[in-house]
């Protein structure tokens, strides 16, 4: 039976989660150097395009189609066949099935987009496109099936708790990010040159959009307009807030000053960590999870720099580390007062969920990277890397603050200059 309230909330949540990907584009875009701002934004924005189409064609079916051996969904729903206005008998049974599928689509979009931060400023766009498509179908879809659908890792199998995608989205993307940054290697000049964020207000804007969208991500995962959704909404806010503190306190001790990027990164770390726990924990526990996530992610990012890994925008340090903190603490802090499913929570099951996702994602991602590198190549040539992705991959630049002198290149018949041209001449006549 369709419930209008549930349906309204799930569709609104889908829109909120969709908005997270452009938010991520700004978050990442501000963190890179000016010459790579568009290349970085494009990686996220393009995921909206490609993953949407793939999800409709086969992605949704692979993830949520009828279970095949606990491992993958069958192809019954290819092209969203049979996925319509009636609710699914299995998922979100009070909401049109097609509404559930479009909600899940938004998760499938942002997950591979998260990976791009680890290899920012050096990936070839053609290589990225192929990687994105393959990863979406060969890594995201099966892991989503195992955990969110009736696969072997989630409630119908091992019983690892993951309310909104701590394993499927964050550990999955974080492990893939680790594989990708090891495979692609460091940026040229890493460790010698200053890689300084070019637009910090853009970073903060992006983080704010992520935070906002996360209410759809977590509270939407209640799949209904319920008390559970309100609880998930609340702990999402609380964990993000606590994680800002959890990051800033060690930062002030270590570096003397609280930074805005630190505050934004701490918030994202808290949001990552509360994701698996959102439907299982009480607000006080969200404070614990947030503080722990902010602190652990600060340490992870700090360690990364010292071991010489170029996780450019800290996908491992925030999404993998924060995801693990959240998944494990869910096993400890889940409360039956919030959700009766919390009764089955153990740290052992959570550890299996973490280890399986991490191991599978890391290895499968490496194989995909090897294949893509062989077919089209993954890394831009040295000259393109120095020029920047914007110009070398997209023939654009992000900022033209000065007139650089130029004229249109005509590929067809040359039009005569328009009235603007004449007006400019007339103006200068007057000034003279």
């Amino acid at each position, binding site marked *: 039976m369709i419930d209008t309230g549930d349906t309204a909330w799930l569709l609104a949540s889908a829109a909120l989660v969709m908005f997270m990907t452009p938010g991520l584009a700004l978050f990442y875009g501000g963190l890179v150097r000016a010459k790579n701002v568009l290349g970085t934004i494009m990686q996220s924005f393009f995921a909206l395009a490609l993953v949407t189409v793939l999800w409709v064609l086969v992605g949704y079916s692979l993830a949520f189609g009828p279970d095949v051996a606990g491992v993958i969904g069958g192809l019954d729903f290819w092209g969203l066949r049979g996925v319509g206005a009636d609710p699914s008998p299995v998922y979100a049974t009070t909401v049109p099935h097609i509404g559930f599928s479009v909600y899940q689509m938004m998760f499938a979009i942002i997950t591979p987009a998260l990976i791009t931060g680890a290899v920012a400023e050096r990936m070839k766009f053609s290589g990225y496109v192929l990687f994105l498509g393959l990863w979406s179908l060969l890594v995201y879809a099966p892991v989503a099936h195992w955990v969110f659908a009736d696969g072997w890792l989630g409630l119908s199998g091992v019983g690892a708790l993951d309310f909104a995608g701590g394993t499927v989205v964050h550990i999955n993307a974080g492990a893939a990010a680790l594989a990708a940054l090891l495979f692609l290697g460091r940026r040229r000049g890493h460790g010698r040159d*200053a890689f*300084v*964020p070019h637009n910090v207000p853009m970073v903060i804007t992006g983080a704010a959009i992520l935070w906002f969208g996360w209410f759809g991500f977590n509270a939407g995962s209640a799949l209904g307009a319920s008390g559970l959704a309100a609880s998930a909404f609340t702990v999402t806010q609380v964990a993000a807030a606590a994680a800002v503190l959890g990051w800033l306190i060690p*930062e002030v001790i*270590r*570096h003397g*000053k609280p*930074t805005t*990027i*630190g505050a934004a*990164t701490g918030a994202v770390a808290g949001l990552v960590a509360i994701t698996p726990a959102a439907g299982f924990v009480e607000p006080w526990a969200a404070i614990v999870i947030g503080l722990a996530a902010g602190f652990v992610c*600060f340490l992870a*990012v*700090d360690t990364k*720099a010292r071991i010489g890994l170029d996780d450019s925008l*800290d996908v491992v340090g925030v999404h993998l580390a924060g995801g693990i903190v959240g998944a494990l603490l869910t096993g400890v802090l889940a409360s039956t007062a919030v959700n009766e499913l919390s009764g089955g929570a153990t740290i052992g099951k959570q550890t299996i969920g973490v280890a399986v996702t991490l191991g599978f994602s890391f290895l499968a991602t490496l194989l995909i990277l090897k294949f893509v590198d062989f077919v089209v190549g993954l890394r831009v040539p040295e000259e393109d890397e120095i020029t920047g992705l914007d110009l070398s991959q997209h023939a654009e630049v992000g900022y033209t603050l000065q007139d650089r002198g130029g004229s249109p290149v005509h590929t067809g018949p040359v039009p005569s200059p328009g009235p603007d041209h004449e007006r400019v001449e007339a103006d200068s006549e007057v000034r003279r």
Partner: protein
Amino acid sequence: MKLVVAIIKPFKLDEVKEALRAVGVHGLTVTETQGFGRQRGHTEVYRGAEYQVDFVPKVKVEVVAEDDQVQGIVDAITKSARTGKIGDGKIFVLPAEQVIRIRTGEMGPDAV
């Protein structure tokens, strides 16, 4: 004629401008610039990574003057731009071979 080039702290620009006006300077050029001398740059922190930024923002003021005005100009700048702390800047005095006012074609001291 001389070209007086002064590199000063940006927040002192207004005081320097007023001091120059007071000694009869009625034209100058200002450029935002950066560099370093004994005052080195500063440290910035991004996600725990500290970076040394070498170049300090400064303002460059350029004035062309007749020889007998130069001492007064140098004194005015020295007095108005000084804070007594490191990084107050420098003044360079260079010979200016010719000055031409583009609008009228006047040359030499008349064009200053």
